[in-house]
């Protein structure tokens, strides 16, 4: 049976892909559980608190206890809510955030799918994530969620523009939208061009495209609604924004989607600017370690920076947020697109 053509063309590849996807999802969800824990621990450490420390040794099982608590609670649907859309919204938020991970390469060749336009796919999915918030905010039929959905629609559309331009500058340097190509092209870059003997972290795009690295980092925080740009769920004014009316598993899905999106943005920063799975210096002890380890370490570094920003910087006001997006980042990234194209053409590196 296993040698038949039908099995080899129609049954085996989907099963193989399903297996890979399930493995990726399980690893990702466990990772997200500990990212959540790390986030709370870092936040606590900055405020000189101890953070979660009761469930399990050093509180390591806190996220799983929270998961259990969310799942066994009663889901409450407000009587005025639009029931279908109300339940669809958290599903959209959760599923979209997870689906973008299908194209993320953890190490060379370690991706469920590696399409030609992987970068554009991730960009498209992240531009859809706003729907979870808008639908949830509208369907709750309440003031605070509605205000949150209006804010988040404006915020995410604004910052997508600068993320798009950042992706274009990277595309100009790489010449391909394939995520594996993006990483491999960073193996030799600015560092080797100025005459360094080995490939090192100076070759990666963060140095050559430094302003874009900063723009992308800040836009990634804004795009995932993390503090200081967490206006859609500003606790002090909107209680919890689009999530006010949600409880139990639907709330869990929103929360999960948010953190998976944050992990995705960390991974994307790593791929676009920090050389993905490449070792920081391509010499003996460093290149013995497998690429996936470097990838995770770099992703964690970016996440640590985001967590520090969250605990240190006060929340932006709405008009300041819009000003930063449209009057600072948009002209800067537009200029960088032209400057990058100019330099590449003049130096003949294109």
């Amino acid at each position, binding site marked *: 049976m296993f040698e038949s053509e039908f099995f080899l063309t129609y049954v085996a590849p989907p099963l193989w892909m399903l297996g890979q996807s399930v493995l990726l999802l399980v690893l990702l969800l466990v990772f997200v559980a500990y990212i959540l824990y790390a986030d709370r621990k870092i936040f606590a450490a900055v405020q000189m608190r101890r953070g979660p420390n009761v469930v399990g040794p050093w509180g390591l099982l806190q996220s799983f206890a929270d998961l259990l608590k969310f799942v066994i609670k009663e889901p409450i649907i407000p009587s005025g809510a639009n029931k279908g859309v109300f339940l669809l919204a958290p599903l959209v938020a959760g599923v979209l955030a997870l689906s973008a991970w299908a194209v993320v390469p953890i190490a060379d060749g370690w991706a469920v799918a590696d399409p030609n336009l992987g970068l554009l*796919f991730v960009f498209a999915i992240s531009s859809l994530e706003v729907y979870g918030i808008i*639908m949830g905010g509208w369907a709750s039929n309440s003031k605070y969620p509605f205000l949150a959905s209006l804010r988040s629609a404006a915020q995410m559309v604004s910052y997508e523009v600068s993320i798009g331009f950042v992706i274009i500058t990277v595309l100009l340097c790489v010449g391909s939208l394939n995520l594996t190509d993006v990483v491999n092209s960073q193996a030799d870059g600015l560092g080797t061009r100025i005459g360094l003997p080995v490939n090192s972290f100076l070759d990666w795009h963060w140095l050559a495209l430094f302003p874009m690295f900063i723009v992308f980092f800040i836009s990634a925080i804004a795009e995932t609604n993390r503090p200081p740009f967490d206006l859609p769920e500003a606790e002090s004014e909107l209680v919890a924004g689009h999530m006010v009316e949600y409880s139990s598993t639907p709330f869990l899905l929103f929360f999960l989607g948010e953190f998976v999106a944050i992990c995705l943005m960390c991974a994307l920063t790593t791929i676009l600017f920090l050389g993905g799975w490449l070792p920081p210096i391509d010499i003996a002890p460093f290149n013995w370690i497998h690429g996936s380890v470097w990838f995770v370490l770099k992703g964690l570094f970016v996440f640590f920076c985001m967590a520090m920003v969250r605990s240190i910087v006060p929340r932006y006001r709405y008009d300041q947020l819009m000003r930063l997006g449209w009057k600072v980042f948009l002209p800067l990234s537009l200029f960088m697109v032209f400057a990058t194209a100019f330099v590449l053409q003049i130096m003949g590196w294109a």
Partner: protein
Amino acid sequence: MSVIALFFYLFATVTVASAFMVIASRNPVHSVLFLILAFFNASGLFMLMGAEFLALILIVVYVGAVAVLFLFVVMMLDVDFAELREGFLQYLPIGGIIGAVLAIELILVLGSYTIDPGDAQTAVQPIPDLAETSNIKAIGDLLYTRYIFFFQLSGLVLLVAMIGAIVLTLSHRDDVKRQNISDQVNRNSKDAVTLRGVKSGEGI
């Protein structure tokens, strides 16, 4: 039966069904959500044809930006549906004319294709082999050489539309205080704070 055909019928059915629901559903927000579903499945159809770039751009531009603004506007509207449905029949003539024009155009296109299948080949550039060149390169090669004037013209139209939108919404008000960030950043303690020795009972 190939898998591609299966997916084609799946996407096509959902596209048509959700397009029907856009006009059939009573709640305008549901209409927009069905419109988004229709866009999504149309991009799935593009993807099946191997036009990955068009498929993803359709999602980024239409679903990610345009439909968000649709939803934004529709959610803000306070429409009285009973009143809206009263004058429904008075739009029948103009709606009928538009429908008829679209139907005739579709018949013309499909009819010319049926009469002379080779005709379609003369109008378009040959599609390059997907193995040789990538999707974006193929579109870029055509768009920036053969159709450069149309490209620039559409850019100009968009620019005019953008300037128009800005002019319509630009209103300068003198009675509102605005934040000037560069002023704030450039302030320092020297010119912001002055120390004065004030004698008691006198004031400044």
